[in-house]
């Protein structure tokens, strides 16, 4: 099944390389990808998910401000009626080399379904997304 997912790099973040590769990898994996590119606001993510009837939002943050930028995204989704949407986050989510456990807890607490450490192979998330969306 060709799931629709929204992809983008949140906040004032311009790291474009990983985003281009994720786009390619997710397309290869059979997803229908709505790629918002870099510098995407929470509103744009939510808007795109509504418009495309996506089941998942894949958020990248590389530049360190991920923690500030991602706060409230889950709430915005709920407000917009996207109660069941899956939220994924990956990249270099916080400032500085940090034990991943801490980062994961922080983002799970913010309402993300899965969180990935720096440099995660896109393939890992493909399997996870397929599993998660199958159960929806």
């Amino acid at each position, binding site marked *: 099944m060709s799931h629709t997912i929204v992809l983008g790099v949140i906040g004032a973040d311009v790291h474009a390389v990983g985003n281009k*590769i994720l786009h390619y990898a997710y397309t290869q994996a059979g997803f229908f990808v709505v790629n918002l590119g870099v*510098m995407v606001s929470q509103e744009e993510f939510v808007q795109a998910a509504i418009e495309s009837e996506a089941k998942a939002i894949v958020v990248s943050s590389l*530049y360190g401000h991920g923690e500030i930028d991602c706060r409230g995204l889950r709430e915005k989704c709920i407000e917009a009626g996207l109660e069941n949407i899956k939220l994924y986050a990956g990249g270099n989510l916080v*400032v*500085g*080399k940090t034990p991943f456990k801490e980062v994961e807890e922080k983002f799970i607490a913010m309402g993300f379904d899965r969180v990935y450490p720096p440099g995660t192979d896109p393939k890992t998330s493909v399997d996870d997304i397929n599993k998660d969306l199958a159960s929806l």
Partner: protein
Amino acid sequence: MNIKNKKLDLNEFMQIRENVLLDWPTGKEVNLEEAFVFQKSLPAHLSFSSLLADAKKNQYILIQPRAGVAALDKHIELLQYLQDVGTADCLPSTIDSYTRHKRFQEAQQGLEESIVEGRSLLNGFPAVNHGVSGCRRLIQSVKVPVQVRHGTPDARLLAEITLAGGFTSFEGGGISYNIPYSKNISLEQTIRDWMYVDRLIGLYEEQGISINREPFGPLTGTLVPPSISHAVAIVESLLAAEQGVKDITVGYGQCGNLIQDVAAIRTLESLTQSYLEEHGYTDMKITTVMHQWMGGFPQDEAKAYGVISWGAATAAFAGATKVIVKSPHEAMGIPTMAANAQGLMTTKQVVSMLKDQRMPLTQELKAEMSIIEQETRSIVDKLFELGEGDIAVGTIRGFEAGVIDIPFAPSKFNKGLILPARDNVGAIRFLEVGNLPFSDEIKAFHAQKLQERAAYENRSVDFQMVIDDVYAIGKGKLIGRGSKGEQQ
């Protein structure tokens, strides 16, 4: 198009200036006359221009980190540590991403939260929020020159505040801090805003205060072929010179193949010099900076040290004036103070050991230099042509036409047609030339180089090759080969 590569009229500049200074309350602290006096009062060892001139003359290589945290005290502590323990020859203040996008309110919030939490929530130093007085406290706390390093499309207020604050070098440019660093901002806009910055520096120069300008060489940091970054560096140098800038350090991000990198640094200096002279800017001081590998790093620290050292060795063999240093934490996050100093010490060890060894001008080096020269000249000359002699106009039209094109860039004002990949010895070639104005000969050269590699690896020349190369250094290789020819 309402732009021209012409020195800004002083009145016009002053009019714009009034608005610029209103962008954030600290803007009103800036008083140009007083700033000149302050800059003149600074001792010579805080001048970037003097330091660069000395290094160039005595042929040693300056090392400089990237570094910036939110709180002023912590930032001072950080820079002092990098200077004393890290033996940095010159210092940076890397600006946070909110400031880069003039989101001063969010920067303020990040700064305040950082002070409360006792750790930096910002990925850099919010210089505008700290204002002139904060910058001055910083500059007067260290013993070596400090540069503003950022990635700011509109850096006018940042420049006003930091220069008045005693910084003596300013990185960036209307292209190099736009295309890799933003999405929706037009080149016309950023070139214009950077004319302002350059004009401001020109005013300092007129007062006998030499402020160093450094176009950002590595662009997207990812497999950028030398001729692309050279073309940008030359254009930004020409634009800066027109506004009165006199001291320019042109930059380049290491590719990883030694001959290509040495050829790049050597041609970068000679081509810049030659274009500036051709266009009547004859009293310029030109130096070079090489950035250690700017793409994805290996996560393991020991491996990162290997990448860092190879960058240091390359800078030495090339004879760059300055090298920008990575840390062993690169792949993971903004480095701690200690990790940052470690990158510096590794680099210092290598550049001082190799200080007296330069690569001789061999056949191979000459050939590589000639390729880079031909490519760069064909791009820059085409830009002049498109601009009917005006390089500002030509550059904007050039990007529209894809005559100059930066790989992996986020900007919608970049055509994004070219694709780079490594050849069989790791030099970066063009897999797709897009609309670059290259001769058939040059195009054939690149195609053949990649064919060689593809044949060796028994695969086809395609996008997967590009992806493999993007990942390669992070995975311990230079060339993202398939299984063939790999050490296990």
